[in-house]
């Protein structure tokens, strides 16, 4: 990635393509607990890890924590914009449908606006989403990143 990434309106960003697996759900939930406690932790039973409990709560089955997909969207933006995103970006994700085990997810983005600012920087508005193997959006969102000028 360049120090000054440059994109045109309509340019596509390609993020990870990954199926949601029980291991990935466990990795995230355990990592979240470990980061919160500063020690290695293991997730217990919840709607993400326990089929029976998930059904009792009205879901068809156990499903992924939305933050897994948010992190994958964030990964795509880090690859595209680096520090510009990390130090001054913005990301919004909305979990519009449950993501069940085995669903092959593709993380995607598209530059919606590229606006030159008075100070020489460029503000990018980006559509961000995750879709399944049939192209159905399961997570929808947007991001903003300003890339400083020379």
């Amino acid at each position: 990635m360049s120090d000054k990434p440059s994109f045109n309106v309509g340019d596509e960003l390609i993020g990870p393509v990954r199926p949601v697996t029980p291991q990935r759900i466990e990795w995230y939930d355990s990592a979240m607990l470990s980061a919160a406690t500063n020690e290695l932790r293991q997730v217990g039973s919840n709607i993400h890890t326990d089929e029976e409990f998930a059904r009792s709560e009205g879901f068809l089955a156990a499903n992924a924590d939305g933050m897994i997909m948010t992190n994958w969207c964030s990964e795509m933006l880090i690859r595209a914009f680096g520090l510009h995103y990390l130090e001054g970006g913005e990301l919004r994700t909305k979990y519009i449908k449950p993501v069940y085990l085995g669903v092959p997810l593709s993380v995607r983005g598209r530059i919606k606006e590229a606006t030159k600012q008075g100070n020489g920087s460029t503000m990018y508005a980006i559509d961000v989403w995750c879709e399944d193997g049939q192209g159905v959006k399961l997570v929808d969102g947007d991001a903003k990143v300003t890339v400083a000028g020379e």
Partner: protein
Amino acid sequence: MLGGYISDLEKGDVFKSVEYVVTPFMCSEYAHGTEETSEYFHSARNPAGRQMRPPTMIHVDKMRILEENCDKEKRIAGMKGPDARIHYEYHAKHHSAAYVGEKVVVTGHIVDKYVKRGRPYLWYYLEVSTSDGRLVTTYNDLTVLRYKVDGA
């Protein structure tokens, strides 16, 4: 109402803040859990020259502040509330990065609580700053407090 279950929180509730020092383990472990291999989060060998807290770790900060403010439902400690909740919307704005070794302070309040299509929603607003006052992240979060719709 603070001090109860998460579903007891009400519009206007102001959280008691939490503080912690960002450690290499926290950053690396969280990134590892999402298969994020960017060196920003695993060591100082990156363009910033310091190991960085993943910005999405604001979700962990939400867990921390709920743990401090909801005595009947300490999720990190393994306690459960009356219903499973689901995260509906994440919206983080990065104002600066936080680095390993820095002490950060998490503050926040409940912006709103409402029912839509039979499901109760809770809207959180959180801020993360360094202990010397540099704003790191502002965050809006929408959570569905009960997925199951009564009578459905």
